[in-house]
């Protein structure tokens, strides 16, 4: 069955920059951009990969949707380069001031503007704030079901089959579209690198930019005043630890000394 899939992607500052380069914008209570690379949050990339694989098997369309600053079109171009068919950006000061509830409300409005959808995907956790809320909140906003921590998705006869990763192992969950799923990585969904010709084609594709007035949002649900949680403080914790590097002429000598040190510290 052909599937209409929307993948919500977030553009974030590369989380793997060295810790020494991590600086905070205390006034705005977030990380300082400082010219660091911007990337699509890792699990959102897995979500794109899952969507593209599903499209390859079942047919259909993949649309990448992003809520971000004006420059986030670069993330969407990346998604198009990977193989997404369409992309759209939700960009408005009111959206940027949202908490997760506001973000989900705005994304849902964007999804509704895109038309009938079978599957909404996003990463299971965001690469910057480490929140796991937007996926389940999207399900509430759209009035549909949700499967979290799905590593694989199959389209069967009129239904979708999810492989859900839980503490004790895996579950197989069945749901009829439309449904939301948050995606976790595994060996089957490593994100593909965009092909050069797809990146070039992506450069030509128009990416609509939607402000709050362009989608049906409840003004009372977006913007700073709608925030349900305030960030009182954001700070870098002082880390006292220095690493004691075990010395030695050879690897074996280091190993011996490490074992003795562990014994000394009563750790073994």
């Amino acid at each position: 069955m052909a599937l209409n899939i929307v993948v919500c992607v977030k553009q974030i500052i590369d989380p793997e920059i060295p810790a020494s380069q991590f600086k905070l914008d205390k006034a705005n209570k977030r990380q300082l951009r400082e010219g660091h690379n911007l990337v699509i949050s890792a699990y959102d990339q897995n979500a794109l990969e899952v969507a593209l694989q599903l499209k390859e098997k079942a047919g259909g369309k993949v649309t990448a949707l992003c809520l971000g600053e004006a420059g986030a079109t670069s993330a969407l171009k990346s998604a198009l380069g990977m193989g997404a068919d369409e992309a759209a950006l939700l960009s408005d000061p009111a959206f940027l001031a949202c908490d997760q509830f506001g973000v989900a409300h705005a994304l849902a409005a964007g999804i509704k503007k895109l038309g009938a959808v079978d599957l909404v995907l996003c990463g299971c956790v965001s690469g910057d704030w480490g929140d796991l809320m937007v996926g389940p909140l999207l399900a509430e906003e759209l009035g549909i079901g949700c499967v979290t921590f799905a590593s694989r998705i199959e389209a069967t006869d009129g239904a979708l089959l999810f492989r859900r990763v839980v503490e004790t192992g895996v579950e197989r969950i069945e749901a009829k579209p439309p449904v939301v799923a948050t995606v976790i990585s595994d060996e089957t969904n490593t994100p593909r690198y965009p092909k050069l010709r797809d990146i070039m084609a992506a450069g030509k594709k128009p990416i609509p930019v939607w402000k709050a007035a362009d989608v049906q949002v409840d003004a009372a649900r977006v913007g700073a005043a709608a925030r349900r949680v305030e960030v009182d403080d954001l700070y870098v914790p002082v880390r006292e630890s220095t690493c004691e590097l075990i010395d030695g002429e050879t690897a074996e000598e280091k190993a011996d000394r490490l074992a003795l040190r562990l014994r000394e510290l009563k750790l073994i």
Partner: protein
Amino acid sequence: MPGILVVVAGEGERLTRNALEVLGGAGRLHQKLGEGLAAVALGEKAEAAAPALIAHGAETVYTVSHTLLKDYQAEVYLAALEAACAKAEPRVILLAADSMGRDVAPRLAHRLRGSMVSECIELDGDAGAKSVRAIRQSYGGKALAALAPKAFPAVVTLKLRTMEPAAPTEGRTGRTEALSVTLDAGKARTRLVDRQAEGSTGVKLEDARVVISGGRGLKGAEGFKVLEELAQVLKGAVGASRAATDAGWVSASMQVGQTGKTVAPDLYVAVGISGATQHIAGMSGAKAIVAINTDPEAPIFKLAQLGVVGDYRQVLPRLLAKCKELTSG
């Protein structure tokens, strides 16, 4: 009386570590806020957990017992929780940040028009100001955020292996109330087809006092053999980074990290693990961290107390032999 409500599911006479951690966090918040502390237990025979919940601090226990609650299903659990919250009228709702808590909590907060803080590592309250403060890690643990809910009820999921578990008190009394809730299987939008337990022999990873973990630097499944042997000698468990499990070298159930298992052992040995932010999120609670890596610039060395810059293929076999020698006496 509006207060704190702890949510547990599938608990029996003996509470799991996750439940004890939430009760611990709830108890300490209760001391600060001075509001009532209640628990709601969901399951097929939820009343079995009531005595233990009371012994560990719940003043009131609401139980919702139903065959439909045997396995977690979002819409059904939400209906049961909405009914319990209508009865208990809590201001703060606490759940463990396990796969169920992470799935249900945001949706419960949405339905109750409340707020939510996820993966809280420290919970504080002020009785006078009637305020709650939740601290959580952000940016892969590089920063901490102190959050204040402005909308109530505030739903908070507590990061596993962070809260000091509650201890039982002899002779504590409390009230148990069985709630009669009509649950409709027709409301379920998803269906559990089956589940496959990823069986692991030996020490359970989440409870192990010693964890030996392997990452990308092991370059394949073979590399884990010497880690298994070392774990055996030290009576610990073997973990892995996302790189290793996504590559299919070891079972996904061994993954330590933000979306894998959270561990807080006495000793964590990271072998060939660079220390990516989401991995650290799963093991930063370890009391002592040892890093073995060929790259002296690897971020893991900023977190570890002890480090060896070297190739694990030379270091581990010798470390194994020496540990065997030292622990056999």
